[in-house]
């Protein structure tokens, strides 16, 4: 039986934070997508069914 790949969406406007966190998750074989604002986060959620969404609550805009 193949291992299930867990899909994670990171929504955060802090580039350095989100790219490092993505790299750490990818090293652990998570499938990671990044959105830098709420709107692109919503658009990504409608394209892919994510298992986990890590969302920053206080983003500009």
């Amino acid at each position, binding site marked *: 039986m193949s291992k299930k790949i867990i899909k994670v969406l990171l929504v955060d406007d802090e580039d350095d*934070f989100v790219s490092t*966190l993505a*790299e*750490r998750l990818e090293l652990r074989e998570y499938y990671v997508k990044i959105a830098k604002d709420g709107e692109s986060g919503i658009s990504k959620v409608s394209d892919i069914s994510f298992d986990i969404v890590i969302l920053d609550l206080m983003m500009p805009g």
Partner: protein
Amino acid sequence: MNNNSDWFLCKVTASVTHEMQNILAIIKENAGLMEDILYMSQENLSDSSGSRLLGCIKSIKKQAYRGVEFTSGLNRFSHIVDHAQTHINLLDTAKKLIFLIQRIVNQKGIQLLIEDCEKSPSVTSDPFLFQKAIYLCIECLAEVLQAKAVIRIVIPAVSGSLKKVVFESSNHDIPPSLCSNKISLLPKWLETTEICNQISANVEITTKPFGIIFSIK
């Protein structure tokens, strides 16, 4: 809270500490990534430079976590201007305040200790004035005590509607009557009593043991 300069200072502090939390989160994550990379390659860990690097990363993480503790505490503290009246848990609030002001008292060589209590009483009051009154009680005691003295903070179980924060000093050889006279002459003591009047609280100097009792309904 009506003081505009305090309000302004707190608003700026809230914003800056929020940004500092972001910075510390990036430092923590980058240190974590470096650690991950090192752990993923056993070869890196087996040589001395690998273990030295791991030691450096651990130190960065430790200091970043320390920074997070302070900036989160300061951020929480700066939000005391957001509401004129809030529910205040005496022990929890005193503990958080003491964490932030510990260094000021420690610089004078005085140790601050807070005792845990099973069920801490709560009050509804102005959070800014309440915390300022608690801080000033500590400041007044620290002003008259000498290095190596200990200020113990106790929150007794509630008897009636009056809730208390008791400040007791120990490990000093100054006569308590002299200390209490000195405190009563401090401009800070006058400020403390004025603040207490504004929040329907009371402060009294005790001599056995030497200290201050802050009480509020």
